[in-house]
């Protein structure tokens, strides 16, 4: 007998392995989440096509037309070096989103592996692994990230390392507590009784059941990571000029707040809307994927 058949038979009583609810039904029910998703798709498209659609390079300076408001040649105006703001916003999206995507992917892998390993091992190994997590969580996020990029230098790799370092402990804690709970459930015991290897139990029974938590959490983490990256760049230990990043653009626009407020408003609006959309989407996902959590 294939153990998976048995698992699906027992799972009626055990946690329904979150069957992906039809994506369309999810979006039809939730207009706000749909709006958020559409906006995010739009941002990603802008980031991807930036070099084709926009006739200016993000670092091309034109000192004759500095600090101009929006007009036909420059749809969103120019900054203090005469650089095209639209180009900078678009390339900034590319950098911010790439950094966030890589960081979240790494965080999911490290966090899930660490959490699963700790949860499975139990005993002393578990205790020590979780102590490492406690240690990292004891640091305030932003402080830890500033410390890493500040000391090791603000290269893109270091920025990503800093972001992953702040994010994975939380993920591994979530995964571990779920694995510890699942480990003792009947369907896992049944699989073990049938002689399934540990690897098979993890792959077929444990991971699929923690995946909904990982999915919801990582969506929310994307927004947290984008915020930390923006803050790093804002402080000056993140993305370095002349490369654009939304946080950096906001920082560079601060001196012109009085005379050219739109210069700050544009990246601020993009940054805020992106994070708002991610948060809305993340929470809707958490609600939709978790059978225990009902929308209030």
């Amino acid at each position, binding site marked *: 007998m294939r153990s998976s058949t048995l698992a699906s038979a027992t799972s009626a009583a055990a946690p329904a392995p979150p069957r992906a609810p039809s994506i369309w039904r999810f979006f039809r029910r939730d207009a706000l989440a749909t709006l958020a998703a559409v906006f995010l798709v739009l941002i990603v498209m802008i980031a991807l096509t930036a070099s084709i659609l926009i006739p200016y390079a993000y670092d091309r300076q034109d000192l004759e037309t500095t600090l101009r408001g929006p007009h036909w040649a420059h749809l969103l105006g120019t900054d203090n070096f005469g650089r095209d703001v639209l180009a900078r916003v678009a390339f900034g999206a590319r950098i911010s989103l790439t950094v966030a995507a890589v960081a979240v992917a790494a965080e999911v892998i490290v966090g899930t592996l660490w959490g699963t390993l700790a949860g499975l091992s139990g005993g002393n190994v578990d205790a020590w692994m979780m102590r490492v997590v406690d240690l990292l969580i004891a640091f305030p996020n932003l402080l830890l990230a500033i410390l890493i990029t500040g000391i090791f230098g603000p290269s893109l790799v270091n920025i990503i390392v800093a972001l992953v370092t702040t994010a994975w402990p939380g993920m591994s804690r979530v995964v571990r507590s779920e694995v510890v709970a699942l480990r003792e459930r009947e369907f896992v015991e049944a699989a073990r009784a049938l002689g399934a290897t540990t690897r098979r139990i993890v792959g077929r029974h444990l991971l699929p059941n923690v995946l909904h938590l990982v999915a919801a959490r990582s969506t929310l983490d994307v927004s947290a990571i984008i915020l930390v990256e923006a*803050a790093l760049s804002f402080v000056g230990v993140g993305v370095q000029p002349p490369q654009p990043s939304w946080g950096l653009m906001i920082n560079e626009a*601060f001196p012109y707040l009085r005379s050219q407020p739109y210069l700050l408003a544009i990246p601020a609006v993009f940054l805020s809307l992106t994070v708002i959309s991610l948060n809305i989407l993340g929470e809707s996902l958490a609600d939709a994927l978790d059978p225990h959590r009902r929308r209030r």
Partner: protein
Amino acid sequence: MLGAALLIFVAGRIAPGDPVAIRLGDTYDERAARAIRKELGLDRPIWTQFVRYVAAAARLDFGESFIYPGRRIDRIVRQTLPLSLRLTALAVASAALVGLSLGVISSVRARSRLDRALQVLVVVALSVPNFVVAALLVLVFALWLRALPVAGIGPWQSYVLPVAVLAVAPTAYITRITRTSMLRVMAEDYIRTAHGKGLARPRIVFRHVLRNAALPIVTTIGLAFGYTLTGSFIVEIIFNIPGMARVGVEGILQRDYTVIQAVVLVYTSLFILANLAVDLSYAFFNPRIRY
């Protein structure tokens, strides 16, 4: 905390960039460098350095700044920390006040239009980064209305904007948690009983519901303290406030290791202490928990 200290210490030592070289600048020569290393204790084995460091830190003696010899770090801490703490405390206090009220209103009027609007506001407040909030408030209140100073710290007016910026995120968190946890308690049987006994509604809301919903709210307020401390890094830079977080950022940019270590150690300790205070307060709010 010892673990955190070790991590900070090691990070400072394995980092690239030699502070001795920075300090000597163009006048670098091997003999002078060795003299300075000896003076700073950098020639000792790394474990000796660490033990001496922790022992000194426990006495709040963080040594001198690497870059500016003669500037005692404990004095820097004493000058700048109270200001940072005052800002944080004011922000958390106002956040608790506003957040609690909004949360209670929201839960009493659950699903009303007001409640929905508040929910959206909460998501927005949690999503918009604090430097954007700062820019917005500075633009409106300092540049357009000229009602409040743009930056610096002095009379009470100068506290308003920084505290407001720091308070936005925790207010939203506290509102959300208050609402959720009030609603959960309102679904309990004993609340129905209280209604059945004919108790007045305000009495039920404040005596029965709020009291039983207090635990997660207190937790959030405690955690908010920790996160607001971190938020002060950005706010102190924007508003040009001579607080400790700004000292820390400057230290990081200049690789002033002893300053960085001190700032990180102090902030991490405060963060951990805030969480500890939360744990201890559980016993007060829930008599079933005893330590």
